[in-house]
């Protein structure tokens, strides 16, 4: 891929992720549990992974988390979203590379949601140092299934349309 194309695609994906997370921040919380979100921004990462490859997915996540944190002006938020985003993207990449024959984009997305939620809880624990936080873990695992499925199906729909275009 020509460098200019690559930078353009990367910028587009980062923007999509940022806009999705801003749209999502206007929604009311799904559950009265911190971290229980739809995770729309993950759509950009999943599309990057399946249409452009592993490197692009990692770059999209890192840049999106840093820019998102700066836009919201919250250092805690940046720490939480970057640590969770990075962990879940790395696990999704691992599954994509190792188990692509057995697991489709839907399963990878569900794993991404579950790992994201668990990692965010672990990161929050590092900040607040209260084991009572893990009381939320069951709720965060359950909510990861529908949110992960939603993100997976949405990403698949978009990726199907992008596949015909010679973007890469």
């Amino acid at each position, binding site marked *: *891929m020509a460098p200019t194309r690559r930078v353009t695609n990367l910028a587009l994906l980062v923007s999509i992720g940022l806009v999705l997370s801003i749209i999502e921040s206007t929604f009311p*919380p799904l559950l*009265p*549990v*911190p971290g229980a979100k739809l995770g729309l921004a993950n759509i950009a990462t999943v599309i990057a992974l*399946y*249409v*452009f*490859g592993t*490197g692009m997915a990692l770059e999209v996540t890192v840049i999106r988390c840093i820019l998102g944190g700066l836009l919201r002006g919250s250092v*805690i938020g940046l720490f939480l979203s970057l640590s969770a985003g990075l962990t879940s993207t790395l696990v999704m990449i691992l599954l994509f590379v190792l*188990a692509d*024959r*057995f*697991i*489709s*984009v*839907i*399963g990878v997305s*569900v*794993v991404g949601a*579950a790992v994201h939620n668990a990692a965010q809880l672990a990161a*929050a624990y590092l*900040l*607040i*140092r*209260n*084991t*009572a*936080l*893990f*009381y939320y*873990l*069951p709720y965060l*695992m*359950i909510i*990861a*299934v529908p949110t*992960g*499925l939603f993100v997976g199906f949405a990403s*698949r729909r978009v*990726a*199907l349309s992008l*596949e015909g275009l010679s973007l*890469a």
Partner: protein
Amino acid sequence: MVAKNKKRTWKLRAGDLVIVALVLAAAIGSTILVSQAHAGEKGSLAIVEVNGHEVRRVSMGDSQAARTFTVEGWQGSSTFEVKGGRVRMTKSACRDKICIGMGWMDTSGRSIICLPNRVVIRITGNRKSGGVDTVTE
């Protein structure tokens, strides 16, 4: 980069079901773990922490008279109410008000947590035996 010659099928695969099952199993497993960790006794004392440091402790008697307290958190003040041996967050400077949505809490070992404001109300002690007998304010 994705190999261009490899045509992706995008179809759901058996592994997807396995993954959903595994995540649900993790949910059930963590429920069991959490419920064992906190046996569910009613607590007698609410300890309020801001950014990990204790700022206040309030005894939770059976008195039906509502008492409200305010602490300064990271983003602003958090107000909580103690009544009938239970505690709840009533006002908070945070954005999502998840802490308020958690409602009344009376179980020892559980907490009301407001992450944005870094306020934690931890319930401890045991009303039946042991734990804290009484706390003077």
